[in-house]
């Protein structure tokens, strides 16, 4: 026996393919820009002095919002495409095993783990059930709501008959009026902000406390397991 050599065997699985990882970080950046610029559109910075022709601050902030929005949207479409061509973990974001009993029991286990009622979390190659549920609700459904309401508002400036209006203009009368769409788009921002807080916290916590890697996985794509037990 060689003493000093670690006795724990570590296994690794390739989970997140390169396009998914790039998408994740591009998405993170665009959501950050969207939330900040969006907040500043609702609550503009203090008024600037001088001539109107000297400045274009609000215009620039709105420009950043729209660029980030298109980035988010193109990313969203790409991610849907990748769910079809990517590996088996790539369609987790769009599928929820709602009718599988095991999913719910594992979800309960995960909740108990967060409530300090379980000594040890289970191992998951893809998302754990709690993360899976949140990802589907916030990123997929929530992202779609933000895209649809956001594009409806954007269509107000591109005008009647523009493709944005043709595709998304119906949202405004469906929700009520323009002001209501703004209100729900604004609520959506807060939902995403709170999600990001929870997401970052749990990613760091799980990286330290769970039996698998998380943060490095979203960089390298490899999921490392810290032990060999089931």
């Amino acid at each position, binding site marked *: 026996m060689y003493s000093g050599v670690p006795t724990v065997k570590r296994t690794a699985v390739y989970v997140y393919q390169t396009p998914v990882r790039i998408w994740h970080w591009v998405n993170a950046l665009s959501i950050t820009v969207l939330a900040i610029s969006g907040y500043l559109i609702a*609550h*503009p910075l203090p008024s600037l002095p001088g001539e109107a*022709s000297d400045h274009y601050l609000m215009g620039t902030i709105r420009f950043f919002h729209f660029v980030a929005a298109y980035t988010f949207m193109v990313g969203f479409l790409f991610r849907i495409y990748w769910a079809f061509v990517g590996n088996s973990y790539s369609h987790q974001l769009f599928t929820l095993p709602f009718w599988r009993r095991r999913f719910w029991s594992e979800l309960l286990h995960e909740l108990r783990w967060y409530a300090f009622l379980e000594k040890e979390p289970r191992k998951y190659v893809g998302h754990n059930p709690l993360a899976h549920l949140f990802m589907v609700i916030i990123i997929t459904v929530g992202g779609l709501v933000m895209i649809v309401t956001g594009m409806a508002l954007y269509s107000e400036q591109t005008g009647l008959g523009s493709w944005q209006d043709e595709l998304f203009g119906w949202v405004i009368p469906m929700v*009520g009026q323009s002001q209501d769409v703004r209100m729900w788009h604004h609520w959506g921002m807060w939902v995403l902000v709170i999600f990001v*807080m*929870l997401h970052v916290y749990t990613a760091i916590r799980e990286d*330290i406390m769970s039996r698998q890697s998380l943060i490095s996985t979203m960089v390298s794509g490899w999921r490392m397991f810290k032990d060999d037990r089931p």
Partner: protein
Amino acid sequence: MATTETFYEVMRRQGITRRSFLKFCSLTATALGLEPVFASRIAQAMETKPRTPVLWLHGLECTCCSESFIRSAHPLVSDVVLSMISLDYDDTIMVSAGHQAEAILEDVRTKYKGNYILAVEGNPPLNQDGMSCIIGGRPFVEQLKEVAADCKAVISWGSCASWGCVQAAHPNPTQATPVHKVITDKPIIKVPGCPPIAEVMTGVITYMLTFDRIPELDRQGRPKMFYGQRIHDKCYRRPHFDAGQFVEDWDDEGARKGYCLYKMGCKGPTTYNACSTVRWNNGVSFPIQSGHGCIGCSEDGFWDKGSFYHHVTNTHGFGIEANADKVGIAAAGTVGAAITAHAAASAIQRIKQRSGEHHEENDKA
């Protein structure tokens, strides 16, 4: 009663010169955003077409639409429109009264079946069998349904007829209901606003009478030519918005300099109307020009969207009125505190576990 006189004949009879008539035609073509060639087409149509009878009904309303309409900016337009439409019934301004007046409705219905325009100002209340609005001894909703049955099209004047307006504001005790929810089998043109702009009203009616068709409407049934863009899109203060120059207080330097009123709750960015182009009172001014934000009076349910001085709408249904930012900041703070507490608990647990393992190892040794 209307005869087969053409618009042009009526106008000549009223003492309008041909020169003024042609000026009116080109002005109308311009106001409707049509090509120059349409001026002569309007003239031709008005010279040859018989006048169309218009019945103007009044439900639950404040008469601000009528007040606006009779002040149509260009005297020519108001003169012409009031004489060219054969306004056969308008209980607010007509001379006849009582049974004599009510008989006109029946008369027009039979004589011009399917060929008259019904203009509705205000809306019918449906609660208590509609008795919150009685016209000629009967609920207004009955009169409305009867007259609408044989009309060619309905014009919903103002926010009352189009959306419901103040009498339909929460909790709407009389159940005041916009016209399109009561009359469902006729084309309806919504001309919202509280009131709508005079020239918009005359413009819509002129278009319908001269071209004998309904103007192009948007998804919500409003004429695109007047409601296709927001106040914000054509606001003369828009450069200040783009620059980031706002009125922060009602009497600050920005207010004196005419900066953007967005922070004062201006609803220009969410309101579809022609105020920033057509303006009011002979094109003299409009709310933003006089230093007050738009209150969004031509939008659906504008009474129920919270303060006129905040553009972030209050959200109902949370017990108390709340806006997204208040709740959002509180929720983010709560979640932040919860995360901190959870992280601390996790750390403590981990330290306990570690020391437990350490003891086990020590025990083994």
